[in-house]
């Protein structure tokens, strides 16, 4: 007895928390698009009223026909009311449909807005990536996502109103007892309602079980196939993969291709088969109800206790109530499943950024007397126990040119990420003019740096917008920056000068540029920013020797007496730096200028240098001879 009671309360609790979760989803929907939220409620109401009104007016006409009344007026009222309400409902419906169509885009905009401001740590965390991929993958099933949430809200509201109004409309038939039956009226009605309710409960159960089973099917079987399919997709459509598929995997891909649609087909087939079996049962239940209803009301009509109009009214209303209920319960179950999606999305959109806690303004100095010091810094990526940097001490002296060299994975790029506060050190601290950099306003602090990252990106906007990183810019300054990096000549060939779009993703008139040219524009962007620190991370890796040399020779004019850090594994480029730091396995192992470092034949620098120089040196001897 007691356990039953707790079972009961637990059930109650589950329904409550279920409703609350669905409500949360609806709130998130409203947060992204308030009008869609409003329209889904309004449409739910109208969708309940319009068919009920049609049934009611139809019955009225029959009633007037059989028992007299102003027939013209009734008919006119029936069709006019129907017209008015349909016009209204359709208007809301169109808004609702378009709102749902646009929802995806609005959600993507909200997500990408968030991605632009979250902490870098969050951004690089594979879990973030996984979550977002999960969201995108999940949306592919139509039962998930915000547009689906709007639909569920509408359906639940519609079901509620249909039941409420329908109950009032159908009350009349219950007031007359079945003739020739001795059971009291109350009991008659109870038995009838219990029968209908029984069928309905069965339908709802069926629908809910169907929803959860279909979901399980989609999660366990459709999702992996979809994931795999997306992973293969570029191999079919993307031409840069085309060489690989043609030369190496044609046969394999053909057999793979043959399988993927088949696999998708199998999953699809099971979905459909399952839906169809539910459909048949539902139809049976609905028609059984129909039989019961017609029987119940027909017998009363046969004996003249109710009119033909009552039959029309009662049958129509009960059918609407039944489909309304099954529908809304089914959609409620779907909405419950959708809460898993809503939660992930909601959590992501509500992420707080820690980077922006600092408030101290950065002092503006015309003399660029900024000094950055790295003190005993150790670092490991979140979730990893391997140190990428260990006990690094480094002082950046004003106006100095510092080269950082080392093998791939020795921690060079990580150092830059720490200095620009994309990550905070695990141990130790970094100071700007003696103050911990975490105390500064982050955006102002970032304004101190002009960085050209190894994997720098330009955007498919105009050259000027790229250089200025803004829609508004100083033309002269843009041109000057481009001139300094040696882009002047190429600029003359650009159809619209600095207003030429680059790449074709954004504007069809866009101009394709080579890697070397992109490099130059990226440097111009760094120059335009004019920050006191200039950091160049592997800027010449993808360049041919002549462009590479060109960049080297411009290095001085690019840096212009600012503090500069130059990261490279191509040691030839270090020759023009006053100070070279050698990284190995996260530590600073050597420091000095080229001539000093090369003397230490046991050192890492010597090893790195010779690995490259050997090719050139022995040849050189040949030539010199």
């Amino acid at each position, binding site marked *: 007895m007691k356990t039953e009671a707790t079972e009961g309360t637990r059930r109650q609790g589950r329904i409550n928390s279920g409703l609350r979760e669905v409500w949360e989803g609806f709130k998130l929907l409203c947060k992204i698009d308030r009008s869609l939220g409003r329209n889904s409620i309004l449409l739910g109401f109208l969708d309940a009223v319009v068919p009920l009104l049609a049934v009611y007016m139809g019955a009225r006409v029959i009633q007037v026909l059989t028992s007299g009344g102003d027939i013209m007026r009734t008919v006119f009222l029936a069709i006019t009311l129907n017209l008015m309400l349909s016009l209204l409902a359709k208007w809301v419906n169109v808004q609702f449909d378009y709102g749902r169509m646009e929802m995806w885009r609005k959600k993507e905009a909200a997500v990408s807005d968030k991605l632009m401001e979250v902490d870098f740590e969050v951004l690089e965390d594979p879990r973030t990536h996984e979550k977002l991929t999960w969201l995108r993958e999940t949306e592919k099933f139509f039962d998930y996502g915000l547009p689906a949430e709007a639909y569920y809200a509408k359906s639940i509201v519609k079901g509620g109103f249909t039941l409420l109004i329908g109950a009032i409309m159908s009350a009349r038939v219950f007031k007359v007892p079945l003739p020739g039956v001795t059971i009291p009226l109350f009991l008659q009605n109870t038995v009838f309602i219990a029968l209908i309710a029984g069928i309905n409960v069965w339908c709802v159960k069926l629908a809910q079980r169907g929803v959860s089973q279909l979901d399980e099917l989609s999660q366990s079987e459709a999702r992996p196939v979809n994931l795999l399919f997306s992973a293969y997709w570029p191999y079919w459509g993307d031409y840069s993969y085309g060489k690989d598929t043609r030369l*190496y995997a044609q046969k*394999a891909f053909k057999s793979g291709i043959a399988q993927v649609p088949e696999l998708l087909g199998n999953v699809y087939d099971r979905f459909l088969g399952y839906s169809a079996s539910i459909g048949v049962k539902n139809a049976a239940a609905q028609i059984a109800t129909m039989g019961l209803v017609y029987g119940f009301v*027909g017998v009363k009509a046969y004996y003249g206790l109710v009119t033909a109009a009552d039959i029309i009214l009662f049958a129509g209303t009960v059918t609407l109530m039944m489909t309304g209920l099954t529908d809304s319960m089914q959609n409620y179950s779907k909405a419950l499943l959708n809460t898993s999606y809503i939660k992930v999305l909601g959590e992501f959109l509500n992420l707080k950024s820690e980077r922006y806690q600092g408030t101290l303004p950065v002092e503006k100095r015309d003399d660029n007397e900024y000094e950055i010091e790295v003190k005993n810094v150790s670092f490991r990526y979140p979730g990893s126990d391997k140190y990428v940097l260990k006990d690094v001490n480094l002082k950046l002296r004003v106006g100095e040119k510092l080269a950082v060299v080392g093998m791939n994975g020795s921690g060079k790029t990580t150092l830059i990420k720490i200095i620009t506060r994309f990550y905070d050190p695990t141990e130790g601290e970094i100071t700007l003019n003696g103050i911990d950099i975490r105390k500064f306003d982050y955006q102002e602090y970032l304004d101190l740096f002009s960085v050209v990252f190894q994997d720098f990106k330009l955007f498919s906007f105009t050259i000027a917008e790229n250089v200025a990183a803004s829609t508004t810019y100083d033309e002269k300054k843009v041109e000057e920056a481009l001139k300094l990096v040696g882009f002047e000549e190429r600029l003359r060939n650009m159809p619209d000068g600095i207003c030429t779009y680059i790449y074709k993703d954004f504007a069809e008139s866009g101009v394709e540029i080579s890697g070397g040219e992109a490099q130059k524009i990226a440097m111009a962007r760094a120059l335009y920013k004019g920050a006191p620190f200039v950091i160049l991370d592997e800027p010449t890796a993808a360049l041919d020797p002549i462009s590479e040399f060109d960049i080297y020779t411009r290095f001085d004019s690019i840096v212009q007496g600012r503090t500069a850090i130059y990261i490279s594994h191509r040691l030839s480029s270090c020759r023009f730096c006053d100070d070279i730091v050698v990284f190995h396995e996260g530590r600073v192992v050597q420091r000095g200028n080229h001539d000093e470092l090369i003397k230490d034949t046991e050192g890492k620098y010597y090893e790195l*240098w010779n690995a490259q120089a050997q090719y050139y040196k022995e040849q050189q001897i040949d030539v010199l001879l």
Partner: protein
Amino acid sequence: MEDVTDESRRPENGFGEKKPEYSLWQNMFYLLKNIYRTDKLYFAFIVLIVPVQIGIIALEAYVPKAVIGGIGVAESLRVYLLSIVYPVLLYLAAKCLYIILDYKLVKGGANQRALYMTYGLNKCVDMDYQAFSSEKGQTLVSRGLALADEGDSTLLVMFGQRCSAFLAGIGGIVFFAGLVTQIHLSLLVCICVSGVIQYYYGERLAEFKEKTVKETRGLRTKMRYVRRAKGNYEYAKDIRLYRIVDLFRDTERKLEGEWECYRRKEKIRDYAGFALTALLIFFRDGLTYFYLMSMFLSGSIQTADFVFLLGITRGISGWLMDLIAQITAIHGDMAPLNDMREYLEYQDSLKRGEGLPVPTRYDIEFKDVWFKYPGSDNCVIKGMSFHIKEGEKVAIVGVNGAGKSTIVGLVIGLLHPCKGEILIGGVNAEEMNINERYALFSAVFQDVHIFPDTVANMVMGSDYEELDLMDVGSSGSDSEKVQTPDEAYRRRKVEEALEKAGLIEMIQALPYGMDTYLGKMSREGAVDLSGGQNQRLVLARAIYRDAPIAILDEPTAALDPIAESEIYERYNQLVKGKTAIFISHRLASTRFCDRIFFIEDGQIMEEGSHEALMRYGGKYKEMFDIQAYYYQDDPEGDKLSASSKGGGESR
């Protein structure tokens, strides 16, 4: 796609021909023909469901008539109730039959879609690379695949249902037209006229939407670009550092404003369509009521007939609306269907299954070869002639954009000369069976792409027949299977290749060894390797293939010096005893080549051994000196002449 006449494009490329514009009826016939050819049962269901649909509508109108009509007429309650039960049971049977048939239709449609998808994807990996990789080819492919790739509601899946709804509409109207004319002929006229009005409006609306789709293509591309760029992880650092956030937001806001404008126009037209329908229903109902009432009042019909005739009239006009909606929907899908047919019917001139026998010696000869990319006016290769002897190792050097990779594409058969001849082992390569030609090469390309498959399968490439996609998520089950001797042999070969590529220890440390899946995103338990490891993996693939000609295209740009010099050693493993072509702009790497071609402006400017070219003192030496400059013990010395510096800038 507009028709561009370009005299140098090979006519077989097909893009020059006019795009097929099939009519609605041609396309319906095409789809139905394919259904009949591939799935006769599906075809039968499309026809079978039609009478069931008509029956359901009739019963829906008939049941209330029976209920009302029996009152005061039936001789006993039992007779009365039976007169209700029979039609209800019939209705139940029809409805269940309908659901089952409808399911069969969707399933058949899904199968058709899968079939077109298979055709389409097969074409992707098979079609001529030159055409495939061109701008027009890419548009052709992406548009051609779009129809089969979309969600559930596409033409291909729904086609059967739409056809049957269309047929049921016609059938229903013919079947019940007599009943309606019984009420009044003008009612039938009214229904048909509203049908025509709706059809006309639907067509206009579809046209408008199609026009909008075309007009907004650029806008949508822009919006998509901004959306993706904002969320792109790779852009994140630059976005933060240069405060590009505002640039994106400003741009996006502007684009969204424009987009909203288009949407509003569409929305209003959509609504107007609905309003028109509601008005037509208003008139139809008014007219129906008017005639039915006068019949009722004159005593020619009873209440039950009133209800029945009202139901049938509404049913017919409902069908007509449905029928029109189906035609409009099919019509709306014609453009993507034409795109798909254009793609599937595209023919290239590659030799498959025929062609000259593959040679047994492997020298490569270019005879006055000219090449330009489709759609471009500039020749990338201009009358190039050379001969690479069997077993010779040649390096191709030059600045970016000089045409180095193009030469490799031409040799392999990914690209085709517009003039001149390429001979491999004395045989005209263009006349060879394309797949046998591909098999002649062990190539490592500049871009490293990793297949979402096991390490072993990735290395084996084309050598393995079955791709075990069913095995989603359970890596490593292969090792439990009994291995055929052939399989065991192949696995040993994979191991050897991994070892030669210097990757074996790393792979063996993976949870399932070489049966570990690659591509973290593709399935659970899969792993991603580092950039350097991936580079070695593609090298292992080339070593495994052990083809007579080795090709290495600029493979070391992202490696540190020690890794770079190590991988050069590994390359020796690959090229040993083979004809080899090596592309790099790290000139030092050309050391182990017998001959060097210095390419500039689509021509071979200098050719010879490294020593010879250095002695010759031309462009190659200039480039080498520039690169060696900082490696010299005394870089301030005068080895770098002023002229070479000037040469660098003029480019």
